[in-house]
């Protein structure tokens, strides 16, 4: 978007359908009592992160942004990893 490059129109409606379907799947998956809690949590988080990724890539147009903005956006990731590590140590 910002670089002035031309590209195909993003598949906005297709992403919307994907988000909708994943939300329904999440709600259904959360009600499955036969799955161990840990796998339930991993599956739900995987679906949530996939949805968040689609929003960031297609709706926030990160896919078409310059690599330097990607670098900037990735700055919090190591900070989040540190936070998770600290949280993990706090719990166990």
């Amino acid at each position, binding site marked *: *978007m*910002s*670089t*002035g490059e031309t590209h195909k*129109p*993003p598949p*906005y*409606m297709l*992403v*919307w359908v994907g*988000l*909708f379907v994943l*939300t*329904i799947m*999440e*709600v259904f998956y*959360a*009600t499955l009592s036969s799955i161990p809690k840990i796998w*339930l*949590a991993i599956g*739900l*988080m995987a*679906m*949530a*992160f996939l*949805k*968040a990724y689609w*929003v*960031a890539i*297609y*709706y*926030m147009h990160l896919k078409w*942004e*310059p690599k*330097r*903005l990607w670098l*900037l*956006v990735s*700055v*919090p990731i190591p*900070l*989040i990893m540190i*936070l*998770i590590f*600290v*949280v993990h140590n*706090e*719990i166990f």
Partner: protein
Amino acid sequence: MTTQAMTAGRAPMPGMKVYNLKLGMWIFLLSEVMFFTGLIGSYVILRFAHPEQFAEPGQVLNINLTAFNTFLLICSSVTMVKAYAAIQQGDQQGLKNWLLATIVIGASFVGVQVYEYIALAGEGFVPIAEAYHAVGRHMPHDGPAIGGQLYGSTFYTMTGFHGTHVSIGVLCLCFTYWRAAKGAYTADSLGGVEIMGLYWHFVDLVWIILFTIVYLI
């Protein structure tokens, strides 16, 4: 369309290839990522450390209602991005229509959240330690409490901060709509719509994570 044209002559940040307004919004959003990560991290610590203070999914919170609210926010994201796509084509009426749809859906999200809060408070699920007595959905009011005060405090803190962000977003959308009605945006000057969209999609993205962690796990 070039960056120079989109920002009506304002130079992009040297080396970043992104105009300043947008770079500023991204930096603000990154600070918001850390803010919400801090809140979610605290919730995870408390939940693992005191599992008896929290309820199983669906025991206290209304998952179906919130799933509907999640659907609303997802719809508002697509209407927001449609508004941006409309002004990219120079479609002023399309921009206004899609922005209005985003405002209505965003306000509906806040309305449903207020309704949810009122219903939960009526069932004893409150953030006040002394008054907490959540008996669960469709249960007699004099039954034993499910979970504890930590559940109420963390729930209202996380969803409350998010709801505040949505409410501020709706106000900013109204301002964007007002400017759009005055013809302030064109295909060559749409930076305001784009950064409004970035904020709105971020709010949607945070809710996607919150919905899973708070309501489903």
